[in-house]
């Protein structure tokens, strides 16, 4: 399987972003890097979908943003999880686990 070209199913990007932000506040680039690394370079989030997604999550008050200084001391926009976002993450995680379990079951028995 090539490392960089796996399309994310609709809706999973939100879950991944929320999960990534659950650890600590991050800026956009770091989020995409972390998803890339943790998924053993299987998932590559495109910039074109990452930023709209971040703004969508912000509008739903699941994450909030502020400008801060990055590791190399540049101005970067940091995103962090809100209380509502944390609840949403739990809900989506449960839903995702149920879904994957169900899909796996069908694949195995089929």
């Amino acid at each position: 399987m090539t490392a960089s070209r796996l399309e994310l199913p609709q809706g999973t990007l939100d879950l991944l972003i929320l999960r990534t932000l659950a650890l600590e506040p991050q800026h956009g680039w770091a989020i995409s890097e972390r998803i890339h690394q943790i998924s053993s370079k299987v998932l590559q989030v495109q910039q074109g979908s990452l930023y709209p997604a971040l703004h969508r999550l912000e509008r739903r008050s699941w994450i909030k943003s502020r400008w801060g200084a990055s590791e190399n001391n540049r101005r970067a926009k940091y995103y962090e999880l809100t209380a509502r976002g944390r609840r949403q993450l739990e809900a989506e995680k449960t839903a995702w686990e149920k879904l994957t379990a169900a899909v796996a079951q069908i694949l195995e028995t089929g």
Partner: protein
Amino acid sequence: MLNDLRLRFRSAFKRSAVEDDLNDELRFHFDQQVAKLVASGIPVADARRRAHLALGTHDEIREQFRDASGIRFLETLLQDFRYGIRMLLKNWRTASIAAFSLAVAMALSVAALSVFNGVMLRPPVATAPEQLVSIFATSPGEEAHVSYPDYKYYRDHNHSFSGVAAFPEEISQGPMTVGGLQETGTIESASDNYFEVMGIRPLLGQFFAPGDDEKKTPEAILTYSGWKRWGADPGIVGKTVVFRRGRTLTIVGVAPKNFTGVVFGFSADVITTLAGNSRTFTDRNNRWLCLTARLSPGITRQHARAEMQALLGQLAAAYPKADKDRSAVVTPATVLSEDPDARSTAELISAVLIAIVLMVLLIACANVANLLLGLATGRKQEMLIRAALGASRRRLMRQLLTESATLCTLGGIAGFLIASATLARFWQFSAFMSYMGSFNFSANFRTNSTVLLMTIALIFIASLATGLTPAIYASATDVAGALSGEAVIGGRRKSYVRHALVVIQVAVCTLVMVGVGLCMRSLQNLKDVNLGFSTRNLAAIMIDLRSNRLSEAQGLNSYNQLKQAALQLGGVQSSSLALELPLVDSDWSTDGIRVEGSSAAQWTQIPVNIVDGDYFSTLGIPLLRGRTFDSSDTKNAPEVVVINHNMAETYWPGADPIGKQLHIQNGTRVVTVAGVVGDSKYNTLDEKVHPVIYYALGQHYLPQLLLTVRTRGNASLRLRPLSETVEHVGLQVDSPPFTLHDVMYFSLLLPILTLRVVTALGALALMLAILGLYGAVFYSVNERKREIGIRVALGAQPFHLLKLFLQQTAIISGIGVSAGLFLGIAATILFRSQFYRISPVEWQVLIPVAVAMVLISMAIAYAAARRWIKVSPMEAVRHT
């Protein structure tokens, strides 16, 4: 949600700031990516190129970002709005006609809604008005008011209320002096705990104290307007207000500005305790009080009603004669303290008013829809080009709806402002009522948030009503048809829509016209009522001997002097004294009577009047049998009565009632019928004929009477001499003299006012409908210009063309008028009880309305089509 809106607005309005943010963020991402690639050993230039390729262009991301952040929606809305304003400005003539008719109709609607709000919804002036209730003790066929002893019982024995206040729904007027300054003021009275129950705090001084209702020296409170009238003296508390005959009250306080009086609609100057009222405090049969109470915390209305019913039961057991068979009603308190029946009448009147006004609004909306439809025709090309360039149908509809919403919002705002300004200016006004003098009215009909909300709802409905049809029509683009050059012209479907709009307008207008006709007819029926007496050249004045402290004999003597003096006046033919005059008082006192020879159970209450022998000849009531009273009917002679024809027919059908006997007041008096006079109207114009008994003044002396004179020529010229005569005899004139014509006018005031309002609304509806019809015919002729040209070229004469358009209009208006007539008949049946002698199908109204509407439509069709009919074929064809 709030966060969402905040970000959306920030995105839409501070677009550059947001985009700068986004640019910074993306730039940072790009730099990080390049740095990472460089770190892995790739040359800088190459790293930048690869990063670019991997990330895509910033513009692309920005587009996606804007879609995702919902800027798009607001952006297009603003765009639509700007574009809409441009379109309306471009067609400013059409747009201003549309906005104007909408503004007028909206102003009317807002005014009607405000009146409805002011009468039906607005709570009385009080703190926590939601805890206030009105209490009635109803009994079939009687007023639901409460007597003073009953009120005291309720007040002192209930456990449901923190307080029960009472007030008579009465106002009186007279000269009063404060600090040497005499003014004519309005007096109302209320129980001593009224202000406490309502939770109103005094502006100055204090309000009444418990027990003041029965104090010998009553106190007074000035209302804010009364206080202002007498110079707004800050030290007014403790000073006195002096009424006629030297009655002096001490002013204990001044009420705050928002309190205008106890009785809805009137602006009072002085409020006294119940002791300031001359009514009885002991008679349980005399029901003159309205009750307002405040529920104790935790008590529901149902609970309170149950307790009131129990208290009523105790009263009924103790005083069966007065309080038997009554039931308690507890309703939320409103400004109308009337009993529930009167409330439902008020509800009905305001509902009808609002319905008519909404119909006018409907006509205005149909106008706007038609005008927009006309604009839409001109814009078909534009819509096609937009559709060809890829605009979705939804997008086109939204554009058109935004335009109609803009128009409706402008009209709505204008209407709301006009109505608010008018209502705020005229919420307090003075009106002169012929025989009662000048009264200050005050009713809070000002617009408030409730009215604003209703207005916004109306604007929303109007936007959809005016915009939906044109939007659906104009957005139904047929690109293929357009390319073949056909679809640009009209189309059948649109003409159906337009015709349907005109049919609705004509139908609604016809309905309103039928309403005007019904009001006119009902008023005419009332004017044509056979009164049973003649109002021509009659003048009257109230005589009050009570302050002169005369004995009965002296009093009768003064009366005789007065009558003689009046007869000496130039132009006076006859004069008479009586307790009541027809139509002056809506409620005569009654006596229980039983006819000799009938069973004891048949005690009937019959209205009575006390008159002298000249009463019938002065008023022109014919004597049918026997005699009227004369000087021999004195206290010492056997008591005689005169009865009306209806009473004779009811109790002695087919027999001669003269000499027959009646038992009066539980048999304590037995009287003999001496004469029978003709029936007349007694209390109201629309009452049914009923029995009436007349007593002789010589046998029933009263210190307070009406002196009536019949004059030669105009009675209003004799008013001043009449009051001078009364003063000359040494009596005081308390209230101005009046003519019976004034009384008639006052009796007809409500139907006359209704007719005026409905006529004004009808004229407006007609005007708007004419505008709409003219526009519709004009457009439809305009659309068929090419067809007309071809017809003319083929030899059609102007006459043929005229016939063509008139036929079309006749069909459309025919359908509209018939629909309107059917609605009119339905409305007549529904509201017949509110009119006087109106049959379900009132042909004398329906036929003229139908003929007028059809003729008007034809005239408009002719006016609109004329221009095109005379056109030469070359010109007509070239014009297309």
